[in-house]
């Protein structure tokens, strides 16, 4: 058994660069697609992880976003639609020393693949899952997705969608995900930071990345990406810090007595930072993270950053432990003994 792998912790012999992670394949997304920005940031943070290229695998399903593995000069698997979390689970559980990333889309990961996603999260398989949410089916040319807003007109909803959308973060929290974060394709630094945090987290790490599909759903996230409006519509979470946002950083989120969120202005009605909700990534009960996941413009700012990061044993580690324990008590399996177990008799 080869043991040259690491789990994202040991240092690779040579310091790699972004270029080392760029494959020889032509990138085939539409010019202007948000996927380019994400690819660039992933390639950029990879060398920071100190994991040898050969010990990294990118697994995806089908969709524009799912072509991602082709562009990474690591091992890669472009699976079938929706099944990336399952493929990746099998790989990671059987090869715990590899670092396994999953790239999926809002259709791939939340429509056809929703079940595999939530099961991987509840099991806490040590996967890094990047969900490129462009609120549209890109590859099949523009049908609405499970994250498209009510009323959206697309090829398959010419009179407007009547499907209430998923909130991917809420779905992940509902599935008992241990690490949950949200970021944006264009927020280069934030994206990098979150990627690094996820990579270093031990357990399933789920990142929703708002991604612009400029061909079929241009400007879907304008309100949180546009320079003019973004600071009023996003609150960047920091562990242990109060929820402050706004162009002048004078707005905050606090909770009412009925445990409902409320936007307040610092300095008005005697409100100070002390009144605000303080973010706690590690809260034992996930109710608070769930509450934050549901904040949405126009009434609230969208919460960006790490909503939850609570380590618990990973499935892959528990599997290794169980095997070790059994090896301890029963020893290495002996085929002959096994075949000859139970009642046997001799014909002579």
């Amino acid at each position, binding site marked *: 058994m080869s043991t040259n792998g690491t789990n994202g912790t040991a240092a690779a012999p040579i310091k790699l660069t972004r270029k080392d992670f760029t494959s020889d394949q032509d990138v085939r997304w539409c010019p202007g697609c948000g996927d380019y920005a994400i690819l660039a940031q992933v390639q950029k943070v990879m060398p920071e992880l100190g994991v040898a290229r050969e010990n990294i695998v990118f697994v995806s399903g089908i969709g524009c976003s799912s072509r991602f593995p082709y562009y*990474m000069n690591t091992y890669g698997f472009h699976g079938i639609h929706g099944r990336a979390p*399952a493929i990746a689970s099998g790989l990671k559980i059987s090869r715990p020393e590899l670092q396994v990333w999953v790239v999926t889309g809002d259709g791939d990961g939340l429509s056809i693949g929703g079940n595999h996603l939530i099961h991987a999260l509840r099991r806490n398989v040590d996967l890094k899952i990047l969900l490129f949410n462009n609120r549209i089916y890109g590859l099949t040319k523009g049908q609405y997705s499970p994250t498209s807003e009510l009323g959206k007109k697309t090829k398959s909803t010419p009179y407007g969608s009547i499907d209430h959308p998923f909130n991917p973060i809420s779905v992940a929290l509902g599935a008992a995900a241990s690490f949950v974060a949200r970021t944006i394709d264009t927020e280069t630094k934030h994206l990098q930071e979150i990627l690094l945090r996820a990579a270093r987290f031990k357990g399933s790490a789920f990142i929703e990345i708002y991604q612009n599909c400029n061909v079929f759903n241009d400007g879907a996230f304008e309100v949180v990406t546009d320079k003019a409006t973004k600071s009023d519509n996003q609150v960047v979470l920091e562990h242990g810090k109060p929820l402050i946002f706004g162009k002048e950083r004078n707005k905050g989120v606090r909770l009412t007595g009925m445990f409902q969120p409320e936007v307040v202005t610092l300095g008005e009605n005697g409100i100070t930072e002390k009144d605000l909700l303080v973010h706690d990534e590690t809260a034992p009960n996930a109710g608070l993270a769930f509450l934050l996941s549901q904040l949405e413009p126009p009434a609230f700012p969208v919460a960006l950053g790490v909503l939850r990061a609570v380590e618990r044993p990973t499935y892959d580690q528990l599997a290794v432990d169980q095997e070790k324990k059994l090896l301890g008590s029963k020893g290495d*399996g002996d085929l002959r003994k096994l075949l000859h177990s139970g*009642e046997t*008799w001799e014909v002579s």
Partner: protein
Amino acid sequence: MDIQAPTAPAKPHEAVDTVVIRFCGDSGDGMQLTGTEFTKAAALHGNDLSTLPDFPAEIRAPAGTLAGVSGFQLSFSSQVVYTPGDAPDVLVAMNPAALRTNLADLLPNGVLIVNLGAFTANNLEKAGYKSNPLEDGSLDQKYRLYKVDISKLTQTALADSGLSTKEIGRCKNFFTLGLMFWMYNRNIVPEVENIKQKFSKLPAIADANVKVFKAGYHYGETAEIFTTSYEVRPATDIPKGKYRNITGNEATALGCVAAVKLSGLRLFLGSYPITPASDILHQLSLYKNFGIVTFQAEDEIAGITAAIGAAFGGSLALTTTSGPGMALKSEAMGLALMTELPLVIIDVQRGGPSTGLPTKTEQSDLLQAYYGRNGECPIPVIAACTPADCFNMAVEAFRLAVKYMTPVILLTDGYLANGAEPWLLPNIADLPKIEVAFRTDPVGFQVYARDAETLARQWVRPGTPGLEHRIGGLEKDFTSGNVSYDPDNHEAMIKIRAAKVAGIAKDIPLQAINGEPTGDLLVLGWGGTYGALTKATDECRARGLKVSSAHLRHLNPFPANLGEILRSFKRVLIPELNDGQLIKIVRAQFLVDAQGLNKIQGKPFKVAEVVASIEAHVGVVKAAEGGRSHVQGEVRA
């Protein structure tokens, strides 16, 4: 040999060659256990044997109902045994419902033992009896009827045990077992040990069961009603060596364990429970210290795709299921084929279509295994022919998968899965090798470059420096494996994938024939019908008919000589437990006007059914030769 029976049998005993017993009763009556224990005793005695359990679909249907009847049939013999027997010589019915659903199968003048105590008005009504069949004399005339109040005798035996009435009630199957031990002169000593061990955590129950077991034995000996006991001598013409009794599912699991040892790899099983395949998952879950990882996935699709992920990671990859689950895996099988990764898919067939008859056997997934995927998607298909053969075919599946870098489908069925037979334990050194050579050299590496002989691409384990590469379900370039939409490349890839599978024919044994290499009729079969077809053919040969049989274990590709064999017989009969599936493939490939014998009742063939069909078809050949060629076309017996 006084160990053979602690008390010397006082009544006369008669030697017989083969006996078929069926135990039946309520699901709660423990008939599966009784059957299994008796089977063990027969095996230890050196008989050859074959078993057929028959469960109800409900977990526990209400006590006493027809739906709740559970049965276990075994045939044991001093000769080679091929099947669990067409019809029982001895029927043990623990209640009226069991009698009603099973009586029709009992041979005329067969031994019929009933638990008198269960024939209450209430139970009779639940079974739909208007009058008590034990009292209207109808049974006495046709069968050798023994009315034994097993319930009461058990109760009496355990009067002082301190057990509750309910607990005592659960012991009565051991009375039955004891009685049958007496009747067939079995050694009770190992069984007593057995019982003690099985219930070692509940000593009071163990004691009670032993007591009742002995009570049954002594009842046979003492009671006036039984006059004779029988002796079925150890089988002599079976190969020498060490044996154990094994079911098909157990053998399948052990075959997978063997593949681990033979390959030196770890094994990953991605599976979702489904009857009758679940036991393979259960059993492999026990063997984590063999380097086996079992993953109960959220569904069948996750089961197979997780296995594909593991195959990419360099493990032996396995997924196990039955019909409906197999259907769900269709799309992912295409991915395994396209990525050319080794993957074994085991389908323990059951009665279909749809949810169908989940606990019954059938051979109706062959065409699905062959063709149930989008696009041109050829996958090798093999099938086990007896419970013990599941071991061999599991090893074979992995051998082919790894050597040819391909998914391989292994078909077994409910009959094989749950049925048992003695298994001559293999010598591990004699098992086929599963050679694995992961590529490690980056120089000149091309992801889809192929071995000239096998046409297999090379397996690369992630973690190998310099061999980083990406694969997936889109069409691939012939050599580099990059995505390719080139028209000619697509055709070339379709052809080479097909050629790779076809080429396996060179690597498998030629088809063996049971009987002469030419003749009037060839009986061609596959899978779990082996016993019945072979036995029927042998019987007909013994009667002078020019019939031979061939039983396929490799179905895609076929053994290289199959066409020649088919052409060497005047007529070909293909009996299947489906509406005609192998026959479609054979007719298309060899243009042979093969005839079908099809039974689709969730049950295996009876030997007599096959014999009758053979006779009819040989009759057609003879008639044609006698110039009366008008007896053409469909002959179904």
